[in-house]
């Protein structure tokens, strides 16, 4: 963008912020530097400038200038809506906010993290990091789709995207995006799948290409009771079942870490391990070979035995 346009936008912002009353278009064209040419081109310039300032998040208030003659609208920016104001902040709070922004350095929100830090540092409040324990937070989300999805959720706007299916096919999906959350570094998009008429979960790293707004569908209403943390807990990571497994001494650490009860034995210890998905549990048990034996539930024992027999059969 040319410097002249930047200059004009800054001058417009300053004038609309400084004024105590609404400025009419003719006052703006007459007094603010940069509006040149025919009235028509000035009008077009001003319309674009208003849009640009709104895109930057600056709210321009439109109102009448004269209570008796309200034929010409006037414009102003309220300092209250323009300025950073989330109440008085202490040095400790500034330190917490700075750490929160730092977590995004180098990740998907890097640019916004930097501008948020600039704003925090402009408040003139000394940050008090001494009050915090030594923490170096880091969020590793780098997907270019992260912001577009978060924006679509905030705008309750339907989206569409290509998704990698279980058999590596690419499917076009239509979704009302409800929430975005991560577990163990993996990000999940949860929403109402219009094609399947139910809530579905998608992994961000399985989305191919860009997530786009689905302009053919109307905006949706966010269900009031939707909570991403609760959803992920109850649908993906609900350890509703428990397996009783024998684990060889000094082996099976991945399972031991999850165990809620361990009875020590000679060669094998007996552990109670909660799990949410039987197939994933079977995979984990198979990985450990003869170091882990399922005792119960019976169906888990059966699928493990079947899989071992298949392995022998396929490779024999």
């Amino acid at each position: 963008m040319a410097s002249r346009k930047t200059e004009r936008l800054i001058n417009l912002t300053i004038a609309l912020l400084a004024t105590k009353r609404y400025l009419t278009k003719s006052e703006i064209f007459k007094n603010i530097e940069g509006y040149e040419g025919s009235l028509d081109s000035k009008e077009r310039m001003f319309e674009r400038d208003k849009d640009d300032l709104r895109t930057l998040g600056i709210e321009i208030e439109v109102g009448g200038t004269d209570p008796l003659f309200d034929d010409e609208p006037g414009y102003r920016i309220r300092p209250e809506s323009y300025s950073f104001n989330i109440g008085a902040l202490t040095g400790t709070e500034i330190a917490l906010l700075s750490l929160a922004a730092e977590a995004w350095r180098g990740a998907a929100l890097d640019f916004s993290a930097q501008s948020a830090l600039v704003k925090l540092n402009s408040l003139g409040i000394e940050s008090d990091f001494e009050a915090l324990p030594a923490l170096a937070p880091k969020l590793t989300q780098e997907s270019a789709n992260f912001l577009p999805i978060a924006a679509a959720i905030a705008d309750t706007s339907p989206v569409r995207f290509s998704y990698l299916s279980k058999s590596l096919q690419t499917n076009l999906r239509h979704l009302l995006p409800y929430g975005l959350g991560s577990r163990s570094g993996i990000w999940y998009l949860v929403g109402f799948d219009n094609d399947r008429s139910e809530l579905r979960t998608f992994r961000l790293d399985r989305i191919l290409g860009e997530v786009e707004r689905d302009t053919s569908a109307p905006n949706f209403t966010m269900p009031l009771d939707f909570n991403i943390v609760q959803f992920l807990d109850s649908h993906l990571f609900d350890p509703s079942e428990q397996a009783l497994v024998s684990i060889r001494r000094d082996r099976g650490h991945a399972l031991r870490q999850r165990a809620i009860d361990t009875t020590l034995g000679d060669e094998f210890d007996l552990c109670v391990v909660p799990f949410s998905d039987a197939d994933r549990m079977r995979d984990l048990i198979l990985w450990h070979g003869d170091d882990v034996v399922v005792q119960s539930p019976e169906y888990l024992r059966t699928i493990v035995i079947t899989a071992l027999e298949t392995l022998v059969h396929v490779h024999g």
Partner: protein
Amino acid sequence: MGKFVADTGLQRTARLLNLVPFLSTHQGIEISTLSETFGVTEQQLIADLNTLWMCGLPGYTPLELIDLSFDSGSVTIWNAETLQNPRALNREESLCLLLGLGYLKQQLGIEEASLQASIEDLIQKIQSTFKSAFVSQVFADSSVSAGLRATLQKSISTRSAVAITYHSTSRDEINSRVVRPLEMRVEGSHEYLFAFCQTAQSHRTFRLDRIESIAHQIEEVESVSQVQARETPLSYQIEIKNRARDVVERFNLDPSISQLKREIQSFTASWLVREIMSFGGDVKLLAPIQARNQLVERSKCALEGYLR
């Protein structure tokens, strides 16, 4: 709240509007520090300052224009009262802070109750500028402790050693090592520590979420001159029979190739055999034959556990 900023040309206007309040609270700041803070080159920053100099209140005489001095290399600003308050957080910045705060809250121990309360309070304050209940819809976590990362950062900057217990999943072992951390990096969705392992006398890479505990090591680390050369990986032929996406993700293969017979690389045969076993027959190991025999043996051994 405005739209998410997409037009990068407008970013310059946004930067200039942020520059004024920052300068107002950092009078006399060096141009080099300033350009670093704003993530632009010094040249770009000077162009920004030259543009700002032309701006001010209608009238545009020296009385109304923003006054700047930056010839000496340090920047001072006057007559910019109208713009001197920092701008309200835009939606991206709010999102960034909200997610960061929520994540920070999980990272604090229960003994930090007052900090937890401060975070909750800040979340409420930022949240109140959103129309919708954004916090219940977007949520970030990490499998790596922020305290662990801080200890590693400190150890890298002070060139000191740490004692770690590490869960080596490929060997199904938990062991203690003394390492000298050199660098941390992110690959895919995981973070890694590259370090010189004193115990193994060679450079090693550790996944941060598998470091179970960490402590500063007081003793001096001996300098070691010889570094073990990296072994070359062996290649294995597999055939995908089912669950192609899981297989592709586990072995880091290119998902755009539809071929079912693939070649994969691995440094350790035992790890590879375990990984293939965990697919329960959905992946077939074609070659080499030794690894294939090992797989059949292990499967038979495991089956015996169910016959007892």
